């Protein structure tokens, strides 16, 4: 009965204030790209069919995210063509998958690459090949357009995400001191992208405490500074500063010194890179091919996927490393790999809310929200006039225990998450419900590697990260955290290492 009364009041008030007032829209949508059923089949060792055909390849790449595609890119570029890439989902790209509707293409997860520094030579090589870097100049239309970022705090928007208004003298002093510290760490050359090139035992102490504890030990107690640090860790690692190794917290800031105002981004995020890679490598890539077992056969391997047995001499294991013990015959369980659960959503907007506030901005963050805000997929459009758009909403479920958060992701229905997202947006855009026509939601139980305390200098991680032998691990989680450059580096070095082995 309560709905009837509510409806009555709504229609009565609508009649009262005139019919031209717009009501809330009906919002369509669903969960998309769910893959945990597949993962759970592996975990629970479900019965898989016997293979009915045999395919022989020198190399099988397991996993079609950036690491796997980069291994393929490298092999192909060196004229090594005797390989196949197997992807369990119906779309390659992993965390760089994308979607497209009648409004625009949009990302499902990773949506940018910071302008790579001089050490990221493979990223630069790829970007030269893709026309992103030409004669030492970064292509302007792939750099994030002005205005890049804004933060909602104290009921208003400011430019940039680092809090800049309402700072006390003590806040300013702590931000300055942190910047000085970061500058010193940067000068040591031990924090690099890719991380393997700079990693030094002399920084191992930093991996023994959490970033939150390190900040406290430095006397950095400013709540604004701590909010910002926490935001950065949630954004890049899906973890709070308390769940992040101090080494990783410092790496976030000390590893980069961009030569150009970036980052690099595209409407479909890093899906743009995947698209370009698939144009070159599509014939090697088999989607909807879940590998369910890898068995040793003499010197080589037998890879079981669906109805096919792939016989290979080398494996590039580019899927998340935590899956390896479930697939690989005789592999011991892993202990040092942890992952952060995430939720992303793509919201189709029929128009921007009246409460938008500033010129259209790429990345929009709200102070003290559990979410990471939203990114506008049409921001990189060359058009001067955009009315409909898609916002990609990011939410790392970083507070509390990951396993409980995974349960929450699984157990709550679409409408629960839809409302949670809209509630968060309503704090900033009270009229958002009158703009949104569709919300599609993607749930990822193990979205990205979490660089918890001890993860970086973990012996387990460092051993698996050695590119040697006939099974080469290549996922970005071997760097301790999931970013594009690390995934690409691991993929390329795995490919190089196996080509050396093949050459003998």
């Amino acid at each position: 009965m309560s709905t009837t009364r509510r409806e009555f009041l709504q229609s009565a008030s609508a009649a009262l204030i005139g019919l031209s007032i717009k009501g809330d829209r009906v919002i369509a949508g669903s969960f998309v790209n769910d893959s945990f059923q597949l993962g759970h089949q592996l975990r629970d060792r479900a019965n898989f069919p016997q293979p009915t055909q045999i395919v022989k390849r020198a190399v099988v790449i397991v996993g079609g995210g950036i690491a796997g595609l980069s291994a393929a890119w490298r092999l192909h570029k060196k004229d090594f063509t005797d390989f196949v890439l197997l992807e369990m989902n119906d779309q390659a790209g992993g965390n760089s998958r994308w979607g497209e509707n009648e409004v625009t293409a949009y990302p499902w997860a990773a949506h940018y690459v910071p302008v790579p520094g001089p050490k990221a030579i493979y990223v630069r090589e790829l970007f030269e090949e893709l026309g992103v870097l030409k004669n030492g100049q970064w292509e302007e239309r792939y750099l994030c357009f002005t205005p890049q970022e804004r933060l909602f705090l104290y009921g208003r928007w400011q430019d940039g995400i680092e809090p800049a208004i309402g700072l006390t003298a003590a806040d300013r002093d702590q931000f300055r001191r942190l910047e000085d510290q970061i500058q010193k760490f940067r000068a040591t050359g031990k924090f690099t992208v890719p991380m393997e090139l700079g990693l030094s035992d002399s920084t191992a102490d930093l991996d023994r405490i959490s970033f939150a504890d390190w900040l406290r030990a430095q006397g950095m107690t400013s709540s604004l500074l701590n909010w910002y640090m926490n935001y950065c860790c949630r954004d890049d690692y899906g973890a709070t500063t308390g769940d992040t190794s101090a080494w990783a917290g410092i790496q976030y800031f000390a590893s980069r010194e961009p030569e150009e105002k970036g980052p690099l981004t595209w409407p479909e995020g890093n899906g743009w890179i995947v698209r370009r890679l698939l144009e070159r490598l599509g014939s090697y890539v088999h989607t909807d091919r879940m590998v369910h077992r890898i068995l040793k056969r003499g010197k080589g391997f037998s890879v079981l996927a669906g109805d096919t047995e792939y016989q290979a001499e080398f494996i590039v294991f580019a899927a998340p490393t935590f899956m390896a013990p479930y697939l690989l015959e005789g592999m011991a369980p892993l202990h040092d790999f942890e992952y952060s659960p995430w939720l992303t959503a793509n919201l189709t907007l029929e128009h921007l809310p009246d409460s938008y506030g500033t010129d259209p901005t790429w990345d929009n963050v709200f102070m003290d929200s559990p979410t990471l805000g939203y990114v506008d997929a049409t921001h990189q459009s060359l058009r001067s006039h955009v009315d409909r758009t898609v916002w990609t909403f990011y939410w790392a479920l970083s507070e509390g225990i990951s396993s409980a958060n995974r349960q929450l992701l699984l157990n709550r229905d679409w409408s629960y998450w839809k409302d949670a997202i809209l509630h968060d947006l309503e704090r900033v855009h009270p009229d958002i419900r009158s703009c949104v026509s569709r919300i599609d939601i993607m749930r990822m139980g193990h979205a990205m590697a979490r660089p918890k305390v001890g993860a970086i200098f973990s012996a387990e991680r460092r051993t698996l990260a050695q590119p040697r032998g006939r099974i080469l691990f290549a996922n970005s989680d071997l760097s301790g955290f999931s970013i594009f450059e690390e995934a690409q580096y691991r993929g390329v070095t795995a490919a190089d290492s196996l080509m050396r082995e093949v050459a003998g």
Partner: protein
Amino acid sequence: MGILLFITVLLIAACGLIYELIAGTLASYLLGDSVLQFSTIIGCYLFAMGIGSALSRYIDRGLAYRFVWIELLLGVVGGFSSALLFLAFAYTQGFQLLMYALVIVIGVLVGLEIPLLMRIIRDRYHFRDVVAHVLTFDYLGALGASLLFPILLVPYLGLVRSAMLFGIINVGVALWSTFLFAKQLASARALRIICVVVMCGLGIGLAQAKRITIAAEDNIYADEIIFARDTRYQHIVLTRFKDDIRLFLSSHLQFSSRDEYRYHEALVHPGLSAIPAPRHVLVLGGGDGLAVREILKYPQIDSITLVDLDPEMTRLFSTHPMLTALNKKSFLSPKVHIINADAFPWVDSNTDSFDFIVIDFPDPTNYSLGKLYTTAFYKAAARHLSAQGLMVVQSTSPMFARDSYWCIAQTLKQAGLRTYPYHVYVPSFGEWGFVIAAFRDYELPTSLPDGLRFVSVDGLPGLFKFPPDMSPLPMPPNRLNDQVLVRAYDQDWKDVSH
């Protein structure tokens, strides 16, 4: 019954204070000097409340009936106060007079409310309870209103709609009172009908509030408005004063018919006359057809492609008799091809080549327009230049927006073009600047079409000389990822207006 009565007190206290705050805020917005505005408004308001209280003793009979009427009146006067003040500021000289008159009327009515109400209910309670409760809820209402006003009402509703909303609440109180005091009312039904009618009136006002603010803003235009339309892309306004027609796009002046010939002759002829045999011309922006009118003075030109975002704009300048008289029906020429498209994607995907490109966009007042002034855009546009091709760019004022002007010139240079900056005086604009850009050298033309009123062969060299107060400034280029131009333009105009 008791609590309902006191909620009535709370609501009317809130309404009264909201009207006062709205008047103070509006006066501060529109006139400045917020200390003066708030002080005088609060003073007048409190004084008027005193008058109201004093007048209450002359009301002997029909207390409830008069109370309902006071609430109704307050709802109407208070509810429409903000809209009235906006319109008064836009259309009349008497803003302050009206404002103080409204504040006094509202103050008197609010001053009447509480004494009347206390007398209506005095038989129901002890006198000391009446005083204590009424005043308590009166002050609570004031607190609520003073918190609601800055936190919710101003940011989310705005001043016009907030006033309407509280007007509705006031009338709601009137309606409610007809039930509360039904026994003391002879003609409750008639009053109720009036309440509902007034409420609908305020409701319509609430729904149409945006129109009222737009109407008020329109009157920043000094002259008679002969055409106004909100298109999907912009707000088009045409004004006329005697023989002067002016076009405003989203409140920015585009031309005045008295001197636009200076602008458009200067935009087109220095470049176009310097091209030996121009055949194909591209105009980006320029939906008024005035640049095309100048281009049609070259009979050897085969085709003119005009790309303008807004179909309403090009339709208006193809059909409106007053405007086609101005552009000499240029859009009706068979040589002209009109394409309604967003310029950057069009330039980026089209592959045609042109001998002359006119780039005549609105000033870079925001980052969306700023994209059309970037190295990326100029590179894309320059790919359309034929071997002998030149392009000319509307580049804001080297006088009032000197940083912006030289930033645009630098951006063209950075896009790999040779640049030839020049400027003209257009009375309705002031000093205005253009840049000719090309991959080749530019030399001044030695002949021009007949019948020009401003540009002459003798006068041309002077246009390319910049006196010291407009001379080049070192500026970085405007890039998609670092739009320095929009910030510079904003700053330039702030410097001029302060």
